[in-house]
């Protein structure tokens, strides 16, 4: 009998088959986060992004419109471009110098007459088009040149994501990081959307917000979540915010949605953060974080730091007191909610291969965990019905 972990078989979290199936049917079939809009700031700039099985690059044309293509030379398939860069008018494959213009047309083949004496129809060898769009200041790519629009995909959940205008905020580069978690990507998602754990795992790190008054739900496969500041924090909120406001008054609270698949946002009164979850293997996941703050002067930041100091100086601390810590770098004594989450995910993944693993009943605050599993099943069903 298949061992189940709520709606999904435990295999879905441990097997190579499930990993490949999700890569093929989920991460290669959806709109995928590809960076912030400012990563491609001017005509000629480009970036490439791995989106499931597809490597897609985005380049800005002189009309300031973005184009997306599959990063595959039409000759022998070599990846055309690396990471990020800037070009004037053309992209050349390093292997045999086949060259494409920014519309994806193949414009030159070296030694064409000699190498292809019977001729070659360059017009049939343009780069394969993909799609790109910008939404809430983020780049998204889709492998299909005619995909459902972002309105169809995110439209219903959009009004529930907070009043932030990320395109008007500025990135705080020190907060940009990427790290790996030794757990299946769904474990990481489930941790992100588990409302029950907020008051427990993070009993001493996230209590400036009032988890008991959280409002959350689903729009299709996308999860939305909002919670108000806790009374202590709210009492003098404008003074207590650690950095200047990123959204206007009277908006308050934390918006922490998880868009499908694995696109986490976390936004409060004074910041906007992204939490991008990418599966690397059945039990290995990469998380990328970027943060944007108010477009305010250094002086404004300094003033806010001073005014909020008295609230934060005694705030938080380790979940376990020092005496219970097993070592100096024990995440449970770190006082850092990210370290707490990573620890919980990895500890959970370890048990999934045990023959004695048996999942316990899901709590009310864990209903999003079960619902996310269903979202995966539903998405797979739709995709596999179509193939």
């Amino acid at each position: 009998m298949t061992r189940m972990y709520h709606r999904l078989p435990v295999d879905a979290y441990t097997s190579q088959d499930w990993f490949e199936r999700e890569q093929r049917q989920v991460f290669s079939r959806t709109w995928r986060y590809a960076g912030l809009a400012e990563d491609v700031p001017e005509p000629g700039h480009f970036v490439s992004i791995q989106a499931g099985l597809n490597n897609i690059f985005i380049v800005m044309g002189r009309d300031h419109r973005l184009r997306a293509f599959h990063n595959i030379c039409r000759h022998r398939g070599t990846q055309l471009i690396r990471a990020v860069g800037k070009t004037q008018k053309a992209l050349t494959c390093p292997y045999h110098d086949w060259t494409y213009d920014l519309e994806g047309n193949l414009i030159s083949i070296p030694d064409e007459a000699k190498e292809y004496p019977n001729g070659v129809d360059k017009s049939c060898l343009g780069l394969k088009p993909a799609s790109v769009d910008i939404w809430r200041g983020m780049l998204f790519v889709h492998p299909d040149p005619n995909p459902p629009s972002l309105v169809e995909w995110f439209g219903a959940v959009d009004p529930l994501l907070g009043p932030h205008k990320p395109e008007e905020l500025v990135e705080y580069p020190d907060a940009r990081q990427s790290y790996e978690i030794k757990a299946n990507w769904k474990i990481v998602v489930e941790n992100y959307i588990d409302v029950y754990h907020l008051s427990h795992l993070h009993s001493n790190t996230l209590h400036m917000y009032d988890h008991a008054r959280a409002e959350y739900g689903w729009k299709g496969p996308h999860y939305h979540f909002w919670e108000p500041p806790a009374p202590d924090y709210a009492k003098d909120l404008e003074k207590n915010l650690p950095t200047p406001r990123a959204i206007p008054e009277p908006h308050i609270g934390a918006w922490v949605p998880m868009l499908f698949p694995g696109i986490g946002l976390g936004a409060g009164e004074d910041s906007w953060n992204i939490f991008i979850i990418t599966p690397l293997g059945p039990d290995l996941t990469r998380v990328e974080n970027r943060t944007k703050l108010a477009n305010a002067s250094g002086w404004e930041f300094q003033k806010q730091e001073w005014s909020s100091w008295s609230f934060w100086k005694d705030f938080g601390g380790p979940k376990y007191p020092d005496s219970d810590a097993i070592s100096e770098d024990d995440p449970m004594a770190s006082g850092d909610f990210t370290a707490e989450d990573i620890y919980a995910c990895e500890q959970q993944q370890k048990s999934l291969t045990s023959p004695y693993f048996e999942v316990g009943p899901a709590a009310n605050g864990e209903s999003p965990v079960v619902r996310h599993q269903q979202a995966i099943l539903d998405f797979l069903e739709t995709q596999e019905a179509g193939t």
Partner: protein
Amino acid sequence: MNPDFFSLKVSEIRPEIKGKATSVTFDTPTNLAETFCWQAGQHVTLRFHFNEKEQRRSYTISNPPGAPLRITVKRVAGGLVSNHIGDHLKPGDMVDVMPPFGQFSLTPDPLKRRTHYFFGAGSGITPLFAMINAVLKEETHSVAHLIYGNADGESTIFGKELDKLKIEHAARFTLRHVLSAPSLWSWISPWRKGRVDAEAIKIAVTETPPVAQDVQYWICGPGAMNKDVSNALMALDVPANRIHMESFGGATMTASSVTGIAAKAQVNLGGSTYEVPVSADQTLLNAILAAGLTPPFSCQSGVCGACKARLTKGQVHMHARMALEDSDVTRGEILSCQSVATSDELSISFDN
């Protein structure tokens, strides 16, 4: 397309830009509501009789779909119909109107998320105004940027209405006035002086680059403007299939690269016969107009059919022939505004 005329009652006449243009609103009876459905950007043909002579003109509907049927007619110096509308038409009058048609149309889609750039000048604003309204009302995830050329504030059609849209839809609509001869005391402060040219286009696109990446460009202006704007866009690598345009008055814009040959045309018009020389780069209509004759014509883009004639000898090439059915072409009908000569002797007749 329904080629019949229907008699519609004028419900409102409103002078625009101090009487230099006129907005005419029609009552559409319930039983004709479906017949008179339109897409933003389409036009209607009006028919008048002056001294027992029929005059047809096509005018763009300047309201978005769902609003009352309204056209906005700018006076043409010496223009028979535009001045009649401006001087004599009044509420309660009946006018023959052919149902809406036209290929230059924008169908708003609430599930689309697009960036629309509109480039207009003069009365070319009329279809764009309907389109902008349709986008703001029906395509709520899309944005619209208008770059609008005029001589001065006083000749700017829909200036106040556009200002209102800008306030109501601040996050989704930007408005740039380009004035060639701005007066000092005008209520409109231009974004730039001059024309809607390559430089203006480049700066506008850089100032408000597309966020939604399904980008569409809509151009409607007189004469050379369409070609200038589309050339400027193509110089920025805008793909041709994203550019939509319609010519308003002045020289004809042709998308086709086919050129004609010099010819001699025998033209039957109003019961008389004239010899008209046609040069290689001239349409028959322009050649006939250049000869001082007054053939019927209207849209000059091949969609209204007003300039229809019958070819009885020789051959022509038509750049566009939307107003003609295949059977019309078989019978020898041509659109004189779209025809260039491809044989050196032609005979055509505008008379039935």
